[in-house]
């Protein structure tokens, strides 16, 4: 019986098409997505039917965590440096150039002015440790948040104020922040929410 010879075929696969697909997907993801921003605290934002998109630049974010601690975020390195300089003048703290530069790359922070110097001295990866997340004081006796916002407006008058708070933040804290904004005559501001479908329509 003759042996049946199976012709050996090449296993070579043309990868060009696959390569095209991979890079097409890559292009899609680069164009449609935006970078995850590192924030001092993670907050679960509530949802609303509002469809207005948030602006990326000239924005101040007031982050409020479930315990009611307040964090602050402002975009623009230049603005951040000027802001800290002004805050230092207000609270009689002089910051060195190194500290100012360090502050300009901190995305969001939440420390009282008295702890600012030591906060800037520690390593960047230690800043998100629990003991360093103190929150900005916003009481009637020591309302530092008011100065932060006021100074931010002086540094960049085009700034838009937005509040990003956790769902379970108790109302008294929200009232305190709203009151602070009203004191500054900033009666229009934005609440950052995620999208939810309108039940009626």
């Amino acid at each position, binding site marked *: 019986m003759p042996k049946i010879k199976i012709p050996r075929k090449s296993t070579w696969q043309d990868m060009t098409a696959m390569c095209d697909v991979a890079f097409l997907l890559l292009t899609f993801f680069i164009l449609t997505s935006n970078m995850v921003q590192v924030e001092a605290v993670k907050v679960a934002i509530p949802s609303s039917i509002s469809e*207005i998109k948030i602006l990326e630049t000239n924005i101040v974010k007031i982050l409020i965590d479930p315990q009611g601690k307040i964090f602050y975020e402002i975009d623009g390195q230049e603005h951040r440096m000027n802001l800290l300089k002004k805050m230092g003048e207000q609270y009689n703290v002089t910051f060195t150039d190194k500290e100012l530069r360090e502050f300009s790359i901190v995305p969001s922070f939440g420390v009282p002015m008295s702890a600012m110097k030591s906060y800037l001295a520690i390593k960047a990866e230690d800043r998100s440790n629990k003991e360093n997340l103190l929150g900005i004081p916003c009481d009637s006796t020591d309302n530092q948040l008011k100065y932060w916002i006021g100074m931010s407006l002086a540094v960049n008058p085009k700034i838009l104020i937005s509040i990003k708070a956790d769902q379970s933040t108790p109302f008294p804290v929200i009232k305190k922040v709203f009151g602070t904004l009203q004191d500054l005559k900033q009666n229009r501001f934005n*609440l950052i929410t995620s999208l939810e479908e309108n039940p009626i329509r």
Partner: protein
Amino acid sequence: MAEINTDKGGGKKHSKKPKGKKMSTRIDLTPMVDLGFLLITFFMLATTLIKPQTMEISMPSKDKVPEEEQSKIKASKAITIILAKDDSIYYYFGTRENDIDPEVIVSNFGPTGIRQVLLDRNASVMAKVAQLRKEKSAKNLTDEDFSKQLSLIKADDQAPIVVIKSTDNGTYKNMVDILDEMNICNIGRYAIVDITAFDKELIQNRKK
């Protein structure tokens, strides 16, 4: 790699002239594909597709307005909503008149709760908005005209005025939800106000 050499070898023996080795112009693209997918993975993990939305709100100014310039709202048009603990809502219409307290009713955030109340009260505005939307979908209106007319309808004198108050037990989610209801029910005139002793008293009396 991706290819198994099927050439039996020894082919060169038959050729007489030592030809220069013919190089294949095919390039193995497998590493490039690997690289592509690696980058996709990185971008999927390091980015988000969701762009956050924002809800614009205007708070009443804290400046003192002289008594004669204050616009008095008709008590009959007012709805007071009080956010309480565990996502519950109290609401009442109007205010105390002739020493008779308004009845405080308990509600919730469900579709049959406060939304139904607001929709019933705001029925005429809702009908007008629905009409306007119909016109817009028939392409008789530009976006600009639409929003202009929408705000006109919302500013109707006969529409209810909602006063939002919260007890200390309310949460931020409750507040955003109630503001959302204002948008859903097309209520143009609403304000977030501090809770008063009168409101607390009303809730207290109700519980008894």
